[in-house]
């Protein structure tokens, strides 16, 4: 067994942070710790948006981003799937129409599975239809064109965009605004956050997208995982401070440690 040079710090760091998350999940699960998650506006807005769609009798469009489940953006897509699960429950509760637009074919069966199961769990399996999850196109801009056309023609009342987005973000958000939809968006793709902030009613920024599933489900284990994430952030802050201070005194020990 050979360790690959340059990744040893990362290995140790992954193990430690993984253990921290596990530890916090256990603590919350067994009731030793009951953390409160701070308010996240964008997530509360999803119910408002679906409620409005029900009143207006118009559909809700959910776009889980244009990334798949097999690359570096997979966690964003999967976080979107968690939020989709919650959205589906609300849709079932209000009996509104939901359309999930898919760009990456890999994601198609997964999104079907998530929505079907949640409709079933909510006691309304008949609400899952062939049109609930629709493959729009695997071409980035053809997908955007199809979403925009759908929003305008169906006059969607709510447009929920969660996941990894690229240049199509503003196209879709502006088309939604033009259709008069309430828009809730969330992405960890930095370069696209400004457009969502400008064009949508609510935007989940970076890590808020990943906290969404836990926040919405109030599942104890997942909340424990969020508490663990806070611990990791504090560790990063400490590393940053120590690293900068040692750098101030001409020592690059810390920077080097990170590349071991």
């Amino acid at each position, binding site marked *: 067994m050979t360790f690959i040079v340059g990744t040893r710090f990362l290995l140790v760091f992954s193990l430690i942070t993984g253990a921290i998350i596990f530890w916090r999940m256990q603590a919350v699960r067994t009731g030793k710790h009951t953390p409160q998650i*701070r308010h996240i506006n964008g997530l509360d807005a999803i119910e408002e948006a679906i409620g409005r769609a029900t009143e207006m009798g118009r559909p809700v469009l959910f776009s889980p981003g244009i990334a798949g489940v097999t*690359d570096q953006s997979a966690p964003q897509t999967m976080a979107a799937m968690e939020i989709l699960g919650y959205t589906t429950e609300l849709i079932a509760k209000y009996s509104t129409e939901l359309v999930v637009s898919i760009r990456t*074919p890999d994601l198609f069966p997964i999104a079907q599975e998530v929505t079907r199961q949640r409709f079933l769990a909510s006691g309304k399996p008949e609400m899952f239809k062939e049109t609930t999850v629709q493959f729009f196109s695997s071409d980035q801009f053809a997908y955007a064109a199809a979403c925009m056309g759908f929003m305008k023609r169906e006059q969607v009342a709510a447009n929920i965009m969660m996941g990894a987005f690229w240049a199509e973000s503003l196209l879709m958000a502006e088309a939604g605004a033009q259709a008069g939809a309430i828009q809730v968006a969330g992405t960890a793709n930095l370069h696209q956050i400004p457009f969502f902030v400008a064009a949508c009613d609510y935007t989940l920024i970076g890590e808020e997208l990943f906290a969404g599933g836990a926040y919405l489900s109030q599942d104890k284990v997942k909340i424990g995982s969020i508490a663990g994430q806070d611990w990791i*952030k504090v560790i*990063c802050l400490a590393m*940053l401070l120590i*690293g900068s201070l040692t*750098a101030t005194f001409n020592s690059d020990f810390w920077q080097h440690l990170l590349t071991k």
Partner: protein
Amino acid sequence: MNISSNPWVWIAALGSIAIFSSMFKDNPFYRAAEHIFVGSGAGYALTQAYRNITIQGWRPMSDDGRFILIIPLILGVLLYTRFFRKIEWMSRWSMSFLIGVGTGIAIYGVYNSQLVAQLRATMVPLFVAGNAAATRDNIILVFGVIAVLLYFLFTVQVKGPVKHATSVGRVLMMITFGVSFGNVVMGRISLLLGVLETVYGKWLGLF
């Protein structure tokens, strides 16, 4: 004026105009372009998929005897069990394979390029002798990153000075968003000019 006689230029120009027409009103011209676009995209993807299955899966197996490739081929076929109620659970094997690869790649990828690399780049000296500007910038960088990170604490009730720090963090995020927005404008106008060049230049021959 010297209108192009190349039919492909006509298709490209008319298609672009159809797409542009959507910003004024949903119209049949745009709908046609949209549906052609979606159909073409899907057809192209199917072609690529056929190519990939043949080149990466079938030929290496049948021609070079790499029989291990039967596994992904079977996993691929299993996806289609979704059409049969009784055995559709088998399609989850393929899905969980894909998700396994994705999460495995992502954990290393995001930690390496987004966390460790960024932490390292932010470990800068808080005092640069004889360079007041660099000292200022470095202090903004280190304490700014800390302030924004504090904003992302979800389960800790922030009070006192930390609360102020999170407000500063929010302000810094807004500046970042503004900068990104303003910076993108030029690149996007370039793309608009590119399309206008096709329409005015290549198609209408205005210049």
